[in-house]
């Protein structure tokens, strides 16, 4: 594999690489924090930490997709040597009441099944034991008596009617806009978002319409680090160490579960070994908290790789879509009916349904658009957030349709997109204007990287070559809140307190850069403290590519406040006006008198002591205007947009059905790259994950049971699946309110990836695939069908 950086910003960094430190931090490719210790295996993840003695918890899992629990017999389990106790959902429900039903959108998921199980693998009883082996042995001995109920596995069958996964809907009290759903019965559809833009009209003469049915299967995140939670009672407080992207959410959720004040719940994280959305909201924490609190003990839940597959998945999604272009090649209408399979529990599915539904017709100027997006219960493991937050599934539809529309008109797919893409200031079909979202720039960058205009060498034998392109749009989660506390230490180092969780995306590196910039601090001077709700302030979540913009803005504000404080102190010392004091890499300097003081000198003199700290804090909040219930539109539905594009050149082996990606170009408009190297790594990492989704990555179910839920069978891209050449391109159109113009980047290139590959396969062999992934079996079956005389 060659990583072939084309970014202007990167070239600039390389040029500046040897220059002396000039007090600049933003735009520099500072080394990734903890990279060395990660490579050496020295970094301490949550499960590596030395804790007080904990009892191990292993759960007994349901073997039925849908059943009433008639009884749980724990006698044999309790007899296992080392087993301390066995706890059921009924036990916890008796102690905690309906508070044991938790979830970010719907309060529908119990940490142990109460009365009913709704998927194969659902926790039914928790075995608490001295040592994991004993807990595991005990969990195998718990006997559960079931009365089977009819299950529903297929999302469209679930939309049509019975059987129902839940008797009635239980929206969380947190969200006012879901209140009208409370108590609704006899449905598996827990949420519906509708977008209506423009009035439907007859297509004008000369129009072309394409339509199809699309399917993206559920997938799993497979972070290297397995989920882990430990919880213990410390007097009247509960302490939790957990692998979570959402420590602030977990604190609130656990406080609600146990009826505790927020100050009595401490949630701590360690650096995550990857997550991609797998470690968010309520995972292992409610069970660990309930057991530790009610049993007055310390517990630890360390799940196996096989169990991790059951904790959360990416939503499978069906899309029925159509698109119409008029005689001039302008897209005049788009229609999408989206069904997200959220599994047995809603998790954040309703939010995904709305946020992804609003972009289901793509980043195009379209006169008339209609979207119906539904979140549907089935008897499968709960689906939740996954890099892209539901958007890759609808992009699979619109970028396949746009491609077919261009081909139906006999037009180049890139040129057709270019004509129709949204530009700066354009108002999208959802009603919100575009800013700092350069779709055309991204499209042009990736097609130029592939030399799109030059003729492609197209062999006619066994191997066929093709090129494809796709673009993607996503809205950032809005409204959200971030806070930052900055302590400048007397020696000129700084300690940054934020609840953003570094899970490999590099936030500890770039937040340090943002903090360093106004203070002219050098690389390595700012330490970011791991999230700890006793110490670090509230942050909505580390997810949805929101941290660079939101936490970044809070950090920038805190750092600028710190700079102002330093200038004030220096002005008093120098006896000049604050406006005459500048901060440089060497410290504070008076432009009037040329007096100088380094930060250590200044603070030592100011406090009269060594080791002192100067503290500032800041917050950053975004607001939105809720979308109109009837039209689904809003003039401010999101704080900003992500824009990305991907282009692929590949060959298809028509004998084996294997796709070989020769060159993959990817681009994202990140506003401004705080750290160009890390931005390119995010663009590249998301793209490689997307190659997996395009070609083989999927969870396979049989009657509700995962059949490939081990790493012997689950398919992930290895180094041999990585394209021969990858060109990541950073596009920069600064956002007017981003920190130094920056926006996030973690999801941008996974969004258009699968359709870019499929469009290239379409180009190579003339076949449109509508179902992911494009396995060799699907490709050979389609080639065989193509050869049959029709």
């Amino acid at each position, binding site marked *: 594999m060659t990583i072939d950086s084309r970014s202007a910003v990167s070239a600039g960094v390389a040029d500046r690489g040897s220059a002396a430190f000039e007090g600049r931090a933003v735009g520099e490719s500072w080394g990734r924090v903890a990279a060395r210790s990660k490579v050496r295996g020295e970094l301490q993840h949550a499960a590596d930490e030395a804790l007080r003695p904990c009892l191990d918890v292993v759960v007994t899992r349901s073997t039925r997709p849908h059943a009433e629990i008639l009884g749980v017999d724990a006698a044999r389990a309790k007899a296992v040597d080392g087993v301390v106790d066995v706890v059921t959902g009924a036990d916890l429900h008796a102690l905690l009441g309906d508070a044991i039903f938790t979830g970010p959108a719907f309060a529908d998921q119990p940490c142990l099944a109460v009365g009913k199980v709704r998927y194969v693998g659902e926790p039914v009883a928790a075995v608490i034991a001295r040592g994991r*082996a004993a807990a595991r042995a005990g969990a195998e001995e718990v006997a559960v008596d079931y009365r089977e109920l009819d299950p529903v596995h297929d999302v469209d069958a679930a939309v049509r009617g019975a059987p129902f996964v839940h008797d009635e809907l239980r929206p969380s009290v947190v969200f006012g806009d879901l209140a009208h759903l409370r108590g609704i019965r006899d449905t598996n559809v827990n949420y519906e978002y509708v977008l209506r833009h423009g009035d439907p009209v007859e297509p004008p003469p000369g129009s072309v319409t394409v339509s199809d049915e699309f399917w993206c299967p559920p997938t799993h995140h497979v972070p290297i680090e397995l989920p882990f939670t430990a919880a213990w009672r410390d007097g009247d407080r509960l302490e939790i160490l957990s692998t979570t992207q959402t420590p602030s959410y977990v604190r609130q959720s656990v406080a609600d579960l146990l009826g505790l004040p927020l100050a009595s719940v401490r949630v701590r994280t360690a650096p995550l070994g990857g997550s991609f959305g797998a470690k968010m909201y309520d995972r292992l924490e409610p069970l660990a908290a309930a057991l530790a609190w009610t049993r007055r003990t310390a517990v630890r839940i360390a799940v196996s790789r096989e169990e991790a597959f059951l904790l959360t998945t990416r939503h499978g999604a069906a899309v029925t879509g159509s698109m119409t272009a008029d005689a001039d090649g302008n897209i005049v209408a788009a229609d999408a009916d989206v069904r997200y399979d959220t599994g047995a529990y809603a998790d954040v599915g309703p939010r995904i349904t709305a946020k992804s539904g609003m972009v289901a017709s793509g980043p195009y100027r379209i006169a008339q658009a209609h979207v119906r997006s539904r979140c549907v219960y089935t008897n499968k493991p709960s689906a939740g957030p996954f890099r892209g937050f539901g958007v890759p599934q609808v992009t699979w539809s619109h970028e396949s349709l746009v491609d077919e529309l261009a081909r139906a008109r006999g037009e180049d797919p890139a040129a057709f997109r270019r004509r129709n893409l949204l530009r700066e200031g354009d108002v999208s079909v959802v009603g919100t204007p575009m800013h700092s979202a350069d779709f055309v720039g991204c499209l042009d960058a990736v097609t130029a990287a592939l030399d799109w205009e030059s003729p492609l060498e197209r062999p006619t034998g066994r191997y066929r070559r093709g090129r494809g392109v796709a673009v993607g749009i996503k809205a950032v989660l809005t409204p959200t809140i971030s806070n930052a506390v900055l302590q400048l230490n007397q020696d000129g180092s700084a300690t940054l307190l934020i609840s953003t969780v570094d899970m490999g995306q590099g936030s500890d590196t770039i937040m340090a850069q943002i903090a360093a910039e106004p203070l002219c601090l050098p690389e390595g001077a700012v330490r970011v403290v791991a999230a700890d709700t006793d110490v670090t302030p509230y942050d909505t979540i580390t997810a949805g590519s929101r941290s660079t913009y939101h936490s970044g803005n809070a950090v920038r504000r805190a750092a600028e406040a710190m700079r102002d404080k330093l200038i004030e102190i220096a002005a008093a010392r120098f006896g000049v006006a604050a406006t005459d004091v500048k901060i440089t890499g060497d410290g504070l300097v008076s432009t009037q008198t040329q007096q100088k003081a380094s930060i250590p000198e200044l603070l030592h003199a100011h406090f009269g002591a060594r080791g002192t700290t100067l503290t500032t804090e800041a917050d950053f909040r975004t607001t939105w205007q809720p979308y109109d219930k009837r039209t689904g539109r809003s003039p401010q539905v999101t704080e900003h947009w992500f824009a990305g594009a991907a282009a692929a050149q590949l060959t298809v082996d028509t004998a084996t059905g294997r796709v070989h990606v020769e060159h993959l170009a990817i681009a994202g408009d990140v506003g401004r790259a705080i750290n160009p190297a890390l931005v390119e790594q995010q663009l590249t990492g998301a793209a490689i994950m997307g190659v997996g989704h395009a070609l083989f990555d999927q969870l*396979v179910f049989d009657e509700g049971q995962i059949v490939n839920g081990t790493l*012997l069978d689950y398919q992930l891209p290895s180094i*041999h699946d990585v394209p021969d050449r990858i060109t990541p391109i950073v596009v920069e159109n600064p956002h007017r309110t981003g920190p130094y113009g920056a926006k996030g980047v973690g999801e941008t290139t996974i969004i258009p990836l699968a359709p870019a590959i499929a469009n290239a396969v379409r180009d190579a062999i003339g076949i449109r695939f509508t179902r992911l992934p494009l396995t*060799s079996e699907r490709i050979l079956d389609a080639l065989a069908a193509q050869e049959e005389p029709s």
Partner: protein
Amino acid sequence: MTAALHRPRDLGAVLDLLAGTDDPMVFGGGTAVQILLKQGVLAATDLVDIAAVPGLADLVATPGGLRAGTMVTLRRMETDPLVHDRAPLLAQVYGRVANPRVRNTASVGGNIAHGDYRLDPPTALLVLDARVELSSAAGVRHVPIREFFTGFQETAVGRGELVTALDVPTQPRGGAAFSKLSSLAANDWPVASAAVLVTAADDVTREIRIGLGALAPTPVYVAVTVAATGSDDDAVDAALAAVEPLIDPLPDVRGGVGHKRRLGRVAVADAVRAAWTDTPRDIPREPREEASDDHRLPFRRLRRRR
């Protein structure tokens, strides 16, 4: 359920443990056993770690070929000049197993004793007519590799027996090739593999030896003869006709029976065509001479081509 771990220091002690414990399992490189242990599906009462037994990791030349002790790693088979010299096809195939981390740990004996129908090395061992040495407290016996794989995940290894070595004859003159196809991720288990050796049957006929992996419940061997004057298409047609009745795939997430059969035909056709094309017009009939060390090609030059 926990198994007792034994670390005997000589072969006699190993064989006594295999004979004298309830349900022993040999622990060689551990790449398969570790996974089974982690998944909690290993039923063994006793694990017998043979890493400390002297002599089991010897790789030596023999008058007719080479002998690999059971604990020789796959990586050594891939890289050792002796294997490159006497059985280059074998080196090539060992180099295609899993990834370097696995190959550096997994052992040749454990690999075949695992008995999985998808393993790569048996395909080459079959065409080379290797012999498996099995030791037990009762003595030593030898089983031709072509009789070693007896059923789905079943081998000729009997109760109390340990694979102690593989004897591999020197590769006959002629062309050889290995083809391995996965249907999903590139590093996944294959859905079809074929090792092929083309050699002289007599002055006017060539023998095509074919070892198949992943295409039936066990690795499969078949040979077919083709006139030396035949084209590569003739060779492929003859080979496909020979393997057709033997391909009996197991459907799974990697593909259905029809798909695996399809890819099996491609693997065989690709390997036969490459081996046939690679075969010199006149194959020397005399036994292959052992090259002196001076004339051995550095192994890097012999590494597999993509």
